[in-house]
């Protein structure tokens, strides 16, 4: 009997489906993967205990941690709650004076700075709640008469400079000195204009502009001070944007670290993973920062603004510790624990770092402090834990780079898509290579030159390639070699095309195909340092469409336009002429493209300039071609080009309209068919 029971127990253990739990936390932790998308990683922070539940906080909006005390602005109850972590007790201050306290800050002396939204001033309270100072709306001429003074946040440097932000403080952060005198604005966001606004700016008069809109930059949402007295700020987007690419197109970052001049010193926006709805930011102990959205997402950034971790989330379909209904503020204590206020639930949730997070922080700090050998080991251990983490590959690559292990470093920067550092490393490798091989390189060059001279001499004697003077034979090879003349004497060549029937449709077609190949190369297969394409997500068909459709429209359009505009060119001439205009691009761009494999970002100019130059060359040839083929004056040619471009726009528009209508017709026919089928057969 016992045996049977034992077997049953065993079976029940084996057969009962036990879902494997991948994480101990409530939410997964994310980081940025090699391809720049989100990827799950090991838990970085875990939700810990809940504080101040049941203490009757009403809509708390901010918190500040100083030693064992947590200061919370209990906005709904017009007071500041001071929670003692040791004893678990709460004291209240400022109940008599405060109206609607929002942001708060506590300095080393224990004075509490409170931004009171309702009383429209900033209070400085002593430990016991006595009012030490009151900063009212400044009557300084520096203070904009139009702007409102509704403080929502405050931060104080160790030098007693008081930074205040308020609702709609578009002019930036208000700066006060220790005596509460207004000093000026600091770190305003820049204004952003939409396309329409730019157009209006161009056309409208000043009065009209004034009447239509007041163009203001985005107001800063919240601020925090680092240990080095630098200012972090977060800003929200005016519009909801779900993708970080869209939000970054706004120009400014949503998370900024301001230097003394007020400029942002974090990464430029296109590299920054950010959200549109940040409400608060907390400066970490070693250059990192934690930005919080009201949906409870917590993003940790390193000192450069690269995303380290993202965790937390909103309590939408399930209520669990670690999720937020409406998160409003975040702060970090001496042990690295995060305290986040849930304004809706009126409590504080504590997140604490796991060993994984601590190791990551250690690796970052070691790298920044220059302990490369230690840092390398730490990064290597992190890479073992998550081989897809971009920050780990970058970190490991950097330690290798500073230890002059360039070959391996290059590999990691390549994986991480870090063109800047890849270029640096490549420069070092190339430098070493040139130093090593300079002698043999020069000898080789001289030898090549001699060889070239000999070949030329032989060729000239035997007259192998002297096809140009041989006018009787006609073949594609000859037409292709005709391009050599075209490069240097475009006008003559086009004359020849028109009158001496030089060039052929076959040769032109070959040139189109070659151009397409070069175009694909240019778009997708540049050297890594200069390659901006996302080859995994690009279809060759779309590249082909991007090339052939404009070509086709141009040739047809140009012929049609010229035929009603006294142009002399036939369709054949336009077809061939356009093809030959591509010749500079086809012949010379490969040189640029080859250069992209051996140049670094230091020599970026060469690539950019030569690329543009060859393109312009083609443009000029095309222009000359039009003049010659249609026998136009310059003015007529310009007009012709304009009308042709207009034709292309019209053609594209007409086609899209037709496409839409066609889709409707198909849908209509399908509906009718379906109805008939239904009536007839059911």
């Amino acid at each position, binding site marked *: 009997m016992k045996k049977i029971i034992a077997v049953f127990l065993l079976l029940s253990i084996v057969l009962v489906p036990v879902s494997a739990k991948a994480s101990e936390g409530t939410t997964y932790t994310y980081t940025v993967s090699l391809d720049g998308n989100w990827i799950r990683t090991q838990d970085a922070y875990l939700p810990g205990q809940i504080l101040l539940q049941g203490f009757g906080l009403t809509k708390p909006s901010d918190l500040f941690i100083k030693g064992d005390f947590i200061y919370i602005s209990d906005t709904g109850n017009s007071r500041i709650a001071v929670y003692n972590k040791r004893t678990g007790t709460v004291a209240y201050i400022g109940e008599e004076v405060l109206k609607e306290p929002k942001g708060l800050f506590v300095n080393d002396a224990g004075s509490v700075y409170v931004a009171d939204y309702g009383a429209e001033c900033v209070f400085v309270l002593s430990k016991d709640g006595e009012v030490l100072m009151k900063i009212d709306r400044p009557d300084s001429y520096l203070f904009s008469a139009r702007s409102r003074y509704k403080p929502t946040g405050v931060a104080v440097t160790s030098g007693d400079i008081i930074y205040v932000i308020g609702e709609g403080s578009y002019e930036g952060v208000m700066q006060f000195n220790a005596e509460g005198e207004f000093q000026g604005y600091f770190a305003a966001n820049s204004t952003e204009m939409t396309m329409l606004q730019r157009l209006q700016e161009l056309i409208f008069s000043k009065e009209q502009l004034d009447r239509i809109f007041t163009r203001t930059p985005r107001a800063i949402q919240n601020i925090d001070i680092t240990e080095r007295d630098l200012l972090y700020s977060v800003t929200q987007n005016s519009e909801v944007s779900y993708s970080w690419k869209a939000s970054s197109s706004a120009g400014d970052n949503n998370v900024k670290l301001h230097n003394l001049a007020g400029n942002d010193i974090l990464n430029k926006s296109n590299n920054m993973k950010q959200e549109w709805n940040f409400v608060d930011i907390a400066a970490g102990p070693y250059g990192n920062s934690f930005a919080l959205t009201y*949906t409870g997402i917590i993003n940790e950034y390193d000192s450069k603004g690269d995303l380290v971790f993202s965790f937390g989330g909103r309590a939408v379909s399930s209520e669990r510790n670690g999720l937020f209904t409406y998160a409003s503020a975040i702060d970090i204590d001496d042990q690295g624990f995060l305290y986040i206020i849930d304004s809706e639930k009126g409590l504080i949730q504590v997140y604490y770092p796991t060993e994984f997070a601590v190791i990551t922080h250690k690796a970052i700090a070691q790298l920044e402090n220059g302990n490369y050998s230690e840092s390398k080991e730490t990064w290597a251990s992190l890479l073992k834990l998550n081989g897809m983490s971009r920050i780990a590959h970058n970190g490991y690559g950097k330690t290798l780079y500073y230890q002059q292990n360039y070959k391996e470093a290059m590999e990691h920067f390549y994986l991480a898509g870090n063109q800047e550092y890849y270029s640096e490393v490549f420069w070092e490798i190339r430098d070493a290579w040139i130093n090593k091989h300079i002698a043999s390189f020069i000898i080789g060059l001289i030898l090549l030159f001699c060889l070239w001279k000999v070949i030329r001499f032989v060729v000239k004697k035997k007259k192998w390639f002297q096809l140009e003077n041989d006018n009787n034979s006609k073949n594609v090879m000859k037409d292709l070699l005709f391009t050599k003349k075209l490069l240097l004497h475009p006008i003559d060549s086009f004359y020849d095309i028109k009158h001496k029937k030089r060039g052929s449709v076959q040769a032109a077609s070959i040139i189109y195909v070659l151009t397409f190949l070069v175009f694909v190369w240019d778009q997708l297969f540049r050297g890594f340092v200069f390659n901006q394409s996302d080859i995994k997500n690009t279809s060759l068909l779309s590249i082909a469409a991007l090339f052939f459709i404009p070509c086709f429209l141009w040739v047809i359009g140009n012929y049609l336009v010229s035929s009603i505009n006294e142009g002399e060119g036939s369709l054949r001439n336009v077809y061939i002429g356009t093809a030959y205009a591509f010749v500079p691009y086809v012949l010379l761009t490969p040189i640029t493209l080859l250069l992209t494999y051996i140049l670094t970002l230091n020599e970026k100019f060469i690539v950019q300039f030569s690329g543009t130059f060859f393109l312009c060359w083609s443009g000029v040839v095309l222009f000359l071609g039009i003049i010659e083929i249609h026998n136009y004056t310059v003015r007529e040619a310009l007009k012709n080009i304009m009308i042709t471009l207009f034709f292309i726009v019209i053609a594209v528009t007409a086609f899209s309209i037709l496409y839409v209508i066609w889709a409707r017709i198909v849908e209509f026919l399908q509906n009718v068919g379906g109805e008939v089928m239904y009536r007839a057969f059911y």
Partner: protein
Amino acid sequence: MRFTKKGILLALSLLSIVIIVRVAGREETKYEFNVSDTSEIEINSNRHTQAETEGQKVKSIVSLDEFEKKLENDKLEIWFHEKLASIRIVDKRSGYLWGFVGVEKPSNLNKAWYAMANSLCTIEYYDNKGADSKISLSSGDIEKEYIWKENSLECRMNAKKIGIRLTFKITLEDNLLTFSTVEKSLVESGDSKIKSIYYAPFLGATQETEIDGYMLVPDGPGALIRYTTAMEYTSNFSKKVYGTDMGIDTLELPSGMMASRSDDYLVEEPQISMPIYGIVH
């Protein structure tokens, strides 16, 4: 004069060296990359059962007034109250008395809930309009017949108005009290359709912190919920045992993050595979 000049220069250069050395040597505040002591914060999280208070003998919050003894063995006694259709259980070993709620109606329960709280059995049903409502054993609308045997009670209940009949049995055996629905006794003769049957849903109920204790719910490896004030509970615990019914329960996914990060951020909740509950006080 020359010497003073040289002297000044020397002094200045010395000063600058001192300044440079001082500035360069200014120690950055070292940050120790050790995992902080998270024991307290961890123990107070929901992944642990949280700190237990000093154990002390508690007094029962219910009494035996107006109840009469019906069943007994060497470990338990069952006392019964006809009007309330309620029982009390005396644990002979400790003398502790288990009940539902008191004889007086608590102020925070309405009549229907109070009837349910004290009744041995409550039926929840859909009426002919599809609205769901409850009827408890103590209700006057139910005809009931109690058949007491040596160690069991059989109760035949007939809710004539809604046309639902049911017989259930309570058996006392050693230290167990077993509730069971008698097979094939459940009959729906009217338009009403039965939704669920509750047996003694409030057995061992306490209010907030009136008694020190906790309950066990089958979440993950088993979770304890300690009794505290209502304010301190974030949400109720409600889950399906053996997984969700894919035919009825929609597959819920959190959304509304309005963020670039994906919506699959929630760690899956463990499925409940065994219906085990417990109350300790």
